[in-house]
């Protein structure tokens, strides 16, 4: 597909629409899921709460945007945008199926991770710019968290890229097609000759944990930590500033789930090799998002040092070992 200006505009509009719709209705899904887990119905007025997200949106948009005195106005305003924009940009290169992709790039993986790093930046600016002690503490926490979790995440991605031989997300998906046994999550691959990589399920787990941490989801939501830091980096945000952070968080979750699906769960491939298509992709990402919600409402929050210990003492050594093992196995098979 040629990338004309017209095409690009359409792609961006669709990406924004998809991200916004997902963000709005994932909030509802999260609240209803949390409700079910806690034996209560959640928002259920007017047809299972269908109108809840628009109402929330109207409420947020009609509120006054308050800028606290002494805050760095520019940074304060730019931070929410910075939280939302990279998430939307990342949608451009995600292949929803063999044909549905806005712009397939041969460095798609790199681009998504480059944009994902903006998330930490947004939190830092928000915390710093709002001139709030809780905000600054949350910002510092979130940045150290993002830095330490990008390392094992990228190492894990490198193992997958090494096995596939491509950084194009579409290529990575296609290399896993043909049934559940070809997916990267399984230790054995029969796609191009026999290949055994016993560590793959563990890589999946590492990547899953890292995407939880990257999206600042519980149990790693130290940037928010509502029982310690009030609301963390968005303590001073109200109105749509808060709304954008909220939407950015959920858009990032969709990106995270899509990446896990593409890198480990075969993308749009059907488990039995039948009727591959976008429906399988959506089913997989929503199952993953459900597990994110499920995890959030089950576990207490980790501590900041517990989180860093997990990254540097457990995840990084294991993923490094995994990288070496993969390199060796690629030589053998």
């Amino acid at each position: 597909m040629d990338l004309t200006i017209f095409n690009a505009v359409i792609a961006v509009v669709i990406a924004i629409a998809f991200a916004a719709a997902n963000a709005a209705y994932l909030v509802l899904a999260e609240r209803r899921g949390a409700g079910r887990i806690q034996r209560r119905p959640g928002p259920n007025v007017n047809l299972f709460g269908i109108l809840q997200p628009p109402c929330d949106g109207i409420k947020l948009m009609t509120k006054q945007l308050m800028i606290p005195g002494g805050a760095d106005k520019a940074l304060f305003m730019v931070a929410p945008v910075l939280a939302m924009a990279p998430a939307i940009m990342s949608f451009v290169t995600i292949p929803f199926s063999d044909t549905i992709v806005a712009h397939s790039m041969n460095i798609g993986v790199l681009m998504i991770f480059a944009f994902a790093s903006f998330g930490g930046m947004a939190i830092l600016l928000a915390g710093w710019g709002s001139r709030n002690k809780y905000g600054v503490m949350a910002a510092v926490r979130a940045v150290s968290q993002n830095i330490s979790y990008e390392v094992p995440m990228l190492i894990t991605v490198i193992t997958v890229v090494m096995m596939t031989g491509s950084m194009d997300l579409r290529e990575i998906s296609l290399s896993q097609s043909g049934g559940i046994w070809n997916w990267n999550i399984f230790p054995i691959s029969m796609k191009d000759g026999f290949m055994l990589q016993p560590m793959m399920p563990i890589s999946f787990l590492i990547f899953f944990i890292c995407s939880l941490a990257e999206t600042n989801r519980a149990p790693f939501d130290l940037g928010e930590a509502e029982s310690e830091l009030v609301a963390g980096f968005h303590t001073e945000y109200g109105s749509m500033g808060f709304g954008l952070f909220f939407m950015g968080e959920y858009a990032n979750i969709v990106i995270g789930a899509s990446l896990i699906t593409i890198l480990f769960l075969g993308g749009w491939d059907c488990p039995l090799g039948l009727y591959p298509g976008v429906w399988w992709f959506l089913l997989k990402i929503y199952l993953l998002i459900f597990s994110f919600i499920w995890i959030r409402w089950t576990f207490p929050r980790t501590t900041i040092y517990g989180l860093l210990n997990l990254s540097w003492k457990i995840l990084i050594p294991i993923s490094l070992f995994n990288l070496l093992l993969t390199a060796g196995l690629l030589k053998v098979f």
Partner: protein
Amino acid sequence: MSGPIHIRKDETFTLNVGPQHPATHGVLRVKMEMDGEYIVKAETVLGYIHRMHELMGENRTYPQVLPNLSRLDYLGAMGYTHGHVLAVERAAGIEVPERAEYVRAIMVELNRVASHLFWFGAFVMDLGGFTPLMYAIEDREYILDMLEAVTGSRLTYCYFRFGGLYNDVDDDFVNAARAFIPRMRKSLKKYDALVTGNIIFRKRLENIGPISAEMCRKYGATGPVARGAGIDFDVRKNEPYSVYPEFDFDVPVYHECDSLARYKVRMDEMEQSLRIIEQGLDKLPEGPIMPKKKPKLIKPPKGDYYQAVETARGSFGIRIVSDGTKNAYRFKLRSPTYSNMSLFDEACEGMMIMDALAMMGSLDLVIPEIDR
């Protein structure tokens, strides 16, 4: 983990935790001198919800103070009214029928379970887990329903009277309480698997917030805080009152001195309370609930009277100095949480804020009871 810390005392900032802060569960204010995430010095500031219950106790007649006592601690109100009625009964020499004593013990223990359940939920919420709170509230709701059916109110009971009870328990209550015990035991197992065993939870509490026995003695901490530090002291055993000597129950004591020990003490206490309720229901005698002859106007003879009871938060003491009139000359409340909280300033020095707030949760603070 309060490991080796190098604190720069020259570059600190002050952080106001409270009076409105999600972790303080009320209007407690903690002024923290912070070095990054580490607390250099903390100072608790009280008095935001002071209502002068002691002065009210001196200006009102003895029965009129009764509703005040349940406003001290809205989570375990039964225990506090129990303390008051026992103190006045001791002062005025009122005999209590046996049935009333048993019903009182059952009610206090039920309320203790309810209080611990709510603490459990709120504590896990302090640590960031929201769901256990909802499960705990669901179980607590059964207790509140039972208590409401008997006493008429859900939180601030005014059920005990000098010499007996406001009204008698019926068979419905006895059956409901009997049915509740196995249900609660099942729930405790669930909490054990969901929370106590959880690695994140354990990592956040093990060896965090050490409060030694020495520190407890220094500040007069009682209840689960002291028992988590290895002090085997329970007013129900050490200075028995009411019908507690009739019951067979253990006092859980842990020697680890950390937040997890205090957590475990409370979880074990719930089981012990269930045992007391079980025995109380079995032994519940028939008979009147109010004494036959009771003075119309309560005027204790001149003297100084003290009664301590074990509430959900520790040893609660009431001192009544009577000058022979219908009002007390001095009405002193020794609230357990006040002492338990006092040690927070010293204990949290050098800790990280999230550990300190986890420790604060493990102290089980109820702010209206501190300020009273």
